[in-house]
């Protein structure tokens, strides 16, 4: 079988978990000898050659093709209605839209020109790029006939998947790694929601990264439950990392590591920290990462008078991330809504016991972790205190967690995906 896949990013050029998940999935597919044509907006040349890569920036769109004009009409609707990027807070979004509205005039011609350079980022021309990416999808679907099924990862690639399906008539699978409800809570960006909804409805089948995400697809997007299959993410490398990096402070360290945004629930971590420090002053809390809620968190920490025990590191990369996991005694992911959440698994690899919110997909696969409701700061504080003071639980978690990790393999995910493909193709035949 040959799959035409549309993604948005690919390692090593990634800004989130999407690229890593695509990479893992392709690795898994290769184990089962499934061929993948993988399209990304921009290829950098240093990607590992695990698939038949197509660089969307290098695809020439034949603007004389009549069917493309029809596609384009539908896409223009998105174009003029949306000025947005994911992961922006209200303030940053306001600034961004002010800029974008004044800045865009010649969208039509530039997109429909024969050559278009994608940035492949999440920048101010995101919607323009998504639309153009759809045209590229249509072109590829016309040029290449050697694929059996189309697979689009997240909303940025849905229009491309839809276009490819319309041109080729081949079945479409959309893969939901996150939804607008996860990113923005109830204050969704309507144009993004619309693309997600259209993608899920146009698809022959929907793959969700967790039961949690499946429920959102069903409840918020009106997709029949039998049309959605849950495929949990896996880890690329389940080996335990032993670091020689040493902690420099005598206290135990409790860590939050992630984007400091609404979705990740940083405020609940801060409140829980206060409760723990009141009972046990020999703990330090670290909030590692950056995001639009950072300053608010700094303010709150000062207000709670725990600035000498609660630290901010800013955005961490490279070795610093590993060091941070290595010196942490407890890792907390209090996400408000997390479709999957790979970070706790990284913590497990560092033998760090984890506390995760029940509102995260990873909670469905990781048994050896403490699970709490993100809003229940008392339970979170109890869990932190317990893991710090009763070493037997922590020891058990690290021993059993490592075993659990080994079961989370991408080849298992790929095997399940292949059965999904088979079922769809069988239904068609």
């Amino acid at each position: 079988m040959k799959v035409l896949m549309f993604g948005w990013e690919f390692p090593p050029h990634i800004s989130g978990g999407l690229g890593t998940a695509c990479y893992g999935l392709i690795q898994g597919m290769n184990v089962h000898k499934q061929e993948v044509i993988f399209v990304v907006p921009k290829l950098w040349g240093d990607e590992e050659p695990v698939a038949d890569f197509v660089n969307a920036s290098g695809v020439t769109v034949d603007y004389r093709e009549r069917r493309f004009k029809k596609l384009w009409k539908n896409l223009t609707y998105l174009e003029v209605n949306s000025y947005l990027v994911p992961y922006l807070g209200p303030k940053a979004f306001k600034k961004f839209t002010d800029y974008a509205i004044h800045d865009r005039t010649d969208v039509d011609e530039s997109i429909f020109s024969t050559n278009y350079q994608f940035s492949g980022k999440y920048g101010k021309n995101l919607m323009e790029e998504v639309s153009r990416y759809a045209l590229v999808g249509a072109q590829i679907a016309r040029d290449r006939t050697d694929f059996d099924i189309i697979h689009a990862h997240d909303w940025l690639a849905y229009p491309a998947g839809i276009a490819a399906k319309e041109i080729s008539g081949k079945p479409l699978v959309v893969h939901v790694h996150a939804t607008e409800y996860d990113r923005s809570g109830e204050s969704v960006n309507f144009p993004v929601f619309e693309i997600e909804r259209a993608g899920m409805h146009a698809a022959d089948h929907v793959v969700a990264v967790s039961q949690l995400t499946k429920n959102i697809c069903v409840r918020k997007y009106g997709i029949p439950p039998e049309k959605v299959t849950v495929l949990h993410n896996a880890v690329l490398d389940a080996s335990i990392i032993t670091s020689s990096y040493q902690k420099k402070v005598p206290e135990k360290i409790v860590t939050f590591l992630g984007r400091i945004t609404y979705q990740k629930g940083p405020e609940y971590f801060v409140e829980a920290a206060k409760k723990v420090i009141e009972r046990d002053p020999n703990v330090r809390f670290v909030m590692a990462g950056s995001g639009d809620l950072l300053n608010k968190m700094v303010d709150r920490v000062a207000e709670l008078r725990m600035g000498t025990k609660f630290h901010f590191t800013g955005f961490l990369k490279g070795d610093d991330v590993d060091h941070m996991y290595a010196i942490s005694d407890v890792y907390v992911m209090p996400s408000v809504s997390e479709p999957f959440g790979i970070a706790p698994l990284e913590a497990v690899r560092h033998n760090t016991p984890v506390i995760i919110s029940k509102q995260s997909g990873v909670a469905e696969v990781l048994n050896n972790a403490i699970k709490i409701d993100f809003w229940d700061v008392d339970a979170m504080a109890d869990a932190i205190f317990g893991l710090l003071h009763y070493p037997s639980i922590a020891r058990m978690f690290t021993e059993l967690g490592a075993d659990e990790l080994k079961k989370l393999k991408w080849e298992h995910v790929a095997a399940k995906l292949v059965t999904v493909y088979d079922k769809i193709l069988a239904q068609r035949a």
Partner: protein
Amino acid sequence: MRTVCFYFQVHQPYRLKPYRFFDIGEDHYYWNDYLNRNVIQKVAQKCYLPMNSLLLELIQRYQGRFKVAFSISGTFLDQMEAYAPDVLESFQRLVATGHVELLNETYSHSLAALKSKDEFFALVHKHQDRIKALFNGYSPKVFRNTELIYSDDIGAMVAELGYQGMLTEGAKHVLGWKSPNYVYSNAKNPNLKVLLKNFRLSDDIAFRFGDKTWGDYPLTTDKFVNWLNALPKEEPVVNLFMDYETFGEHQWAETGIFDFMRHLPEAIFSQSNFSFSTPSEVVAALSPVSSIHVPTPISWADEERDLTAWLGNDMQDEAFDRLYELEKKIRKIKDPELLRDWEYLQTSDHFYYICTKFFSDGSVHEYFSPYDTPYDAFINYMNVLSDFILRVEAASKK
């Protein structure tokens, strides 16, 4: 007697280096030597050296009829010794003329007066010692507190230290209908005379001099002398208090600020009956017209002339409280490096960087801050303070 009293504040803080969470417990050196040296040397070229030489020239030309006063913070003295000995020499030459007065302040430009009498006294004594050592046994008679912060209580403490006079802001909300151009006395201890900054005339030079949108731009010596002459005849003293960096740094040389100062003495001597005096001369010559009541502290900062530039938001208060919680333990420690860090960490600038008052429109605060935002300033300070606390605790267990 009608007289003009110039006092210039000379201060630079020891700025912190970017200090990361990972450094806590490991790296015990907090100071940004590179930045601090650069600032001192840059400002030396633009301000300290040219202005010192201009003042020396004026003092010699008028044979002592022109005179000024300086308050030089201990953190500045230390950095001068380390990074700009030529600047130190030029200050020593000025003081040696006998027509330049030095004032005392807290050694590390600290806000201790608001928190701890013991610490305040300790820092004043340390400043006295430093001045004595560097300026040939010099012993100041008049006191200026950090950022001209003053209250009845602080004045009483200063009187207890034996000073005859103290400088502060002629804050409108304290003066009401009264004029800053008289000598007042402390409300608790009438022995301490209080000199008030004439903020209008001071700020005409310090803030507005080069402002082309100002209605009175350009400020000439003639205009300035006219304003002095226009003051009621019975008002004896005009206190012109400002940062020394006004000359060449806040107001660039291109604005003509040096020429203004070069010609101001001549204009005053020839067109008015004003003389120049130092604070101790004013204190000796004039009797207080009344006491001045300042129940809550005032300063010379911002429109509000209060403490909100340094204290008041949660981040500032937390940093400040956490620092001074250590005082008792510090008293028992003899480690010179810990003491140095304790003193440098008290410098008011660290708290000024955490001010969020002007966060949105970013004005004068931003100009003086090495940080992008007050949040960055807070995080960095707290990381350093966290390490410092660990050291203090370790040392006090010994």
